[in-house]
C-alpha cells in the first residue's frame, strides 16, 4: 500500500486530535492557579481531559488525574491502531505493549509488598481484557514463583524466569530492567517489517531514544549503583543510533568524567551540561531532546509514520507536564521553578 493511501486519513485525524492539546496559555493559567484543587478544576472544566475527570469528587488526587490521563492516552492509541493493518498495526501494538509492561511492573511491585493484586488492577492503565497474559490467572498468585509460572506461554515468562528465586529487594530492579529490554526488542523487531522509508524514520527515532536511555543508565550505574562494568554493559539496550556496543563498552569501563567528555562531543551534549545539576535534570533533558524531535516531525508534516508516532509521544509529554505542574504546586514550587521541570518551553521562561 502506498503511503498516501495509508496515512492520508490518519494524519488528518491526528491533526484534529492534536489541536485539542493544551495551548501555552493553558499551561500558564494552570501554573498561575493558587491551589492544586483549582488546577484540577481548570483541567476538568476547560480542557479536553475534563471528560475523563468527571468522576472526581475531591479535587486533590493527583495520582488519580495521572491515571485517568494515562488511560486517555491508551484510548488514543486504540483509536490510532484502528487505522492501520498488518505490520503497521503490529508496530502500534508493540508500542502499546509498553503500557502492558508498566501494568505488569505494577503487579510485581504489589506482589513484593504483599498486597492484593485486586487493588492494583484498579490503577492499571490498560484494561485487563487487552493483556497478552491472563489477569485472572496471575491475580491468584501467592508467590513470585507462582506468579511467573502463571505467565507461562507469554513473552514475559522467559525474561522473568531466571529471577524467580531472587530476593524481592534486588529482584524488582532486575525484572524491570528486563521488561524494558523486552519492550525495546519487541519494538525493534516490529519496526523491521515496515516499508523502507518508514523503517528508517522509526529506527532513527527509536535509535536516539535508546542512545539516551543507555547514556542515562550508564551514568547512573557509574554514579549510584555498585554494578560491575560487565553487568552495566549487559543491561544496555541494543540498536542504538550513534552509540554502538563498543562505544557503550568504552563508557562502562571508564568513569563519570570520561562519560561526560565523550557525550559532550555528540548531539546529546545537553545531557551533561553543567549549567544545571546533571543528576536532577538528566531525565527531563532526555525528554526535551525527544520532544523537539517529535515536534519537528509535525512541522515537517510528511505523509509517513512520523506523525502518528510523534502524536503519541507528544501526548505523553503533555501528560507528563500537566502532572509535573500539579506536583510542583503541591510541593509549593514557584512559577519559574515549575517551568524548569517541564519538557516544553513556555514563552517567557528565558530559555
Amino acid at each position, binding site marked *: 500500500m502506498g503511503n498516501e493511501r495509508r496515512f492520508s486519513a490518519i494524519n488528518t485525524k491526528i491533526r484534529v486530535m492534536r489541536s485539542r492539546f493544551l495551548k501555552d496559555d493553558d499551561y500558564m493559567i494552570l501554573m498561575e492557579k493558587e491551589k492544586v484543587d483549582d488546577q484540577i478544576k481548570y483541567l476538568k472544566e476547560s480542557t479536553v481531559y475534563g471528560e475523563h475527570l468527571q468522576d472526581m469528587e475531591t479535587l486533590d488526587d493527583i495520582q488519580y488525574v495521572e491515571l485517568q490521563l494515562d488511560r486517555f492516552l491508551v484510548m488514543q492509541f486504540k483509536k490510532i491502531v484502528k487505522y492501520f493493518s498488518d505490520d503497521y498495526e503490529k508496530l502500534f501494538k508493540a508500542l502499546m505493549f509498553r503500557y502492558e509492561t508498566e501494568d505488569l511492573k505494577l503487579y510485581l511491585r504489589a506482589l513484593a509488598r504483599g498486597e492484593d493484586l485486586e487493588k492494583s488492577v484498579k490503577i492499571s492503565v490498560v484494561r485487563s481484557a487487552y493483556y497478552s497474559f491472563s489477569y485472572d490467572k496471575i491475580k491468584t498468585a501467592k508467590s513470585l514463583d507462582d506468579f511467573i509460572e502463571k505467565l507461562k506461554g507469554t513473552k514475559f515468562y*522467559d*525474561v522473568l*524466569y*531466571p*529471577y524467580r528465586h531472587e530476593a524481592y529487594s534486588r529482584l524488582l530492579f*532486575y525484572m524491570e530492567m*528486563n521488561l524494558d529490554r523486552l519492550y525495546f*526488542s519487541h519494538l525493534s523487531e516490529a519496526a523491521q517489517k515496515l516499508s523502507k522509508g518508514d523503517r528508517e524514520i522509526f529506527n532513527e527515532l527509536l535509535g536516539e531514544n535508546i542512545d539516551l536511555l543507555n547514556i542515562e543508565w550508564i551514568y547512573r550505574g557509574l554514579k549510584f549503583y555498585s*554494578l*560491575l*562494568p*560487565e*553487568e552495566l*554493559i*549487559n*543491561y544496555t539496550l*541494543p540498536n542504538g543510533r550513534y552509540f554502538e*556496543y*563498543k562505544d557503550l*563498552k568504552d563508557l562502562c*569501563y571508564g568513569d563519570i568524567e570520561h562519560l561526560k567528555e565523550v557525550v559532550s562531543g555528540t548531539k546529546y551534549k545537553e545531557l551533561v551540561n553543567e549549567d544545571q545539576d546533571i543528576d536532577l535534570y538528566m531525565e527531563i533533558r532526555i525528554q526535551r531532546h525527544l520532544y523537539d524531535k517529535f515536534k519537528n516531525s509535525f512541522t515537517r508534516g510528511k505523509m509517513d509514520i512520523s506523525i502518528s508516532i510523534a502524536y503519541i509521544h507528544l501526548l505523553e509529554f503533555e501528560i507528563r507536564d500537566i502532572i509535573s505542574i500539579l506536583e510542583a504546586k503541591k510541593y509549593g514550587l514557584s512559577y519559574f521553578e515549575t517551568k524548569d521541570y517541564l519538557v516544553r518551553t513556555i514563552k517567557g521562561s528565558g530559555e
Partner: protein
Amino acid sequence: MSVEKMTMMNIIGKVDEVDGVLKDLLKTKKVDLVSALKQIEENNFLFDVSDENVDRLIDLNYITSYEKDEQFEEIVKKGEELESILNLEFDKAAIDTEAPMMKKEEIISEIDQIYQEVQEPKAMIHALEKEVNYLENFHANSFKEVQDFPVTIGELRNMEYFSFKMGILSKEDRYKLKKNYENILAILLHTGTSVDGEVYFVLYPTKLEEEMKRILRSLNFREIIIPKEFSGTPQEIREKLERNKERLHSEIKGQQNILEEIKLRYKDRIKHLMDQLWLTSRLDEIKRKVAISKKYFYLSGWIAESDVSELKMVLDGHEDMLSMFKDDTSEKPPTKLKNNWFFEPFQWLVNLYGTPAYNELDPTPFVGLSYMLFWGIMFGDLGQGAVLVLGGIWLGKKMKLFGGLLTRLGISSMIFGTLYGAVFGIETLIPALWMKPFENINDILMVAIFTGIGILLVSYVYGIINAYKRHDIEEGLFGKEGVAGVILYLMLLAIVGGSLLGIQIIPMPIGIAIAVLALLGIVFRLPLTHIIEKKRPLHGDDVGGYYVESIFSLIETFLAMLSGTISFIRVGAFALTHVGLFLAFETIGHMSGTTMGTIVAMVVGNIFVLGLEGLIVFIQGMRLQYYELFSRYYKGDGQEFTPVSLENN
C-alpha cells in the same frame, strides 16, 4: 400427498415405568412430545373419571417436572474420561437401545469402580512421563553435542579453586558476551544448541563466584542444574541418561499393560455402561417435558392418527398404562407432511418459506409440478438437463432433498430440451418436437403467459379451499383471492384477453356486469360476511375507514392481477435468454475461426450457462412461487412435526 391428521396422546403410567415407556415411544420416532405440565395447566389433559383411574387423577394435583440431575452429568464426564484413558472409542450410532435400563445408582457405582481402578496406573504413567520428559530435556540441553570432554563432572565438582556452571543464553545475550570476552574471568565452552538457545559451560575461579553470578544473571543465563547422581564424563552421563530413559520407558510400558488388561477385561462392560449413560442422559433430557407426581408420570405428545394403533400396541406392552387419544384440543397441532417420493424434495422448497398450518392444504405437489414446468420452459436443454440429473444424483448422497430436487429439474430440462430440440446449446443436432423458442419469440411468450394464467387459476382454487378449511367466509367468498376475486379475474381475462385476441369470449355487457358484481362483493365483504354469519353490527367501529381502505385495496387488486399475470412473461423471456446466451458463445467461437475455438467457446458457454443462468432461473422460479403464487393461497404459519428420537437433539 397431504397434511396428516394429528391426534393428541395423553398417558398416565406408574412412575417407575417412565424410562421403559419413554424408550419404547422414542424408538417409534412417531411422537412429538409437548410439555405435559403445560397441558395439565391448560386443562387439556383430560380423562374420564372412573373408579380405576380416580387415584391417578387426584395425584394430578401434586405434579412437578423432572429436574436436571447434575450429579449424573458429572458421571457422564467421568465416563468420557474413562473412555479416553483407555483409548476406547465407541460409535454413538451403534448404541444398544434394546438392553433393559439400569438404575442410575448402579451405573454410577460401576463406573466409579472402574474409574478408581485406572487411577493408579494413570497417575504412575503421568509421573513417569514427566520424568522422561525431564531427562530428555536435560539431555537435549546439556551434553547432547559434547564430544571431547574427558573430565568427569565429579572431578569438576571436587575442584578447590574453581567452580563451574552450565546454562542457556539467548542469541542477543551471547552476542554481548562474545564482544566482552576479554573482560570476563572465565572459560566459556559452547556445548550445544537446544530449543531454548545456546548451551554454555562456564568455568571460573571460585573466588569470583559472586561477580560471575551477577554477570551471568545480567545475561539472562538460564542455569541447568546437573543432578547429583551424574558425576561421570559427559559421555558417561549420556549413557546413564539413556539407560535411565530405557528403564522409565519399560516401566511406562508395564503400566500401560496394566491399563490394557483393564481395558480388555472391562471393554464390553464399559461399552454397555456408556450406552446406558448416554441413553439415561438422553432420556433425562426428554423427561423435562414429562410431569410426575409421587406415584405416576404424565406424558403428552402429538402423533399422527394413522399411528394410533401402533402406539397403542407399544403402550399395551407396559402394565397399568392409561392412555387417551384426542383429536380436538384448543391447541394447534404440528404439521406432518406426507408426500410420495416424487414430490418429497419439493417439501424442502415449501418448508424454506414456511411449514403449512395444520388445517392448510399441503401445496407441495402443486409447487412441484408448477416449478418443474417453469424450470423446463426456461431451461430446456437435453444435454444440460442430463448434467443436472447426474449432478443431482451425486449431490443426493450428501444432501438428499436438494439432490432430489436437482434431479427432477434436470428431467424437466431434458423433456423440454427434446421439445425445443436443444442439446448443450446446439440447436442443429436434433429436430424440435414442438418449436424452437428463438424462432418463435411471440409464441413462447404467449405460452408463458397462458401457462401463468393456468397456474394462477389453480392457486386461486387452493386459496379458496384453504379459506374453506379455516371457515373463513370473508376471505373465501368475498376476498380478492376468494371466489369474488376469481370471478373478477376471469371476467377481466375474458374482456381484455378477448379484445386482444379479437374473439368474443363473453358478451361485453354481461362480462362487465359480472365483474362489477364481483367488485361490489369485494368492497362490501365485511358487511356481507356478517349478514351470512348473522353477526351485528355490520361493520367495525370505523365505518368510513373501512370503505376508504376497501376501495384502495381494489386498486391493489387490479394491479396485482395485472402484474401477476404479466410476471409470467419472464418464463418465456428466460427461455429466450437461454438460447441467446448460447448464440453469443457460438459467435465468439466462430470468430476464432477454428474448430478448437468453437469447442472451447461452447464448453465455457455451457459451464457459464449451467452455473450462472441456472442459478438465476432457480431463483426466478422460486420468486414466482413465493411472490406470485404463495401470496394468493398460502400462509405457511404451521409448526413442523418433529418426533423425538434417541438420536437427535
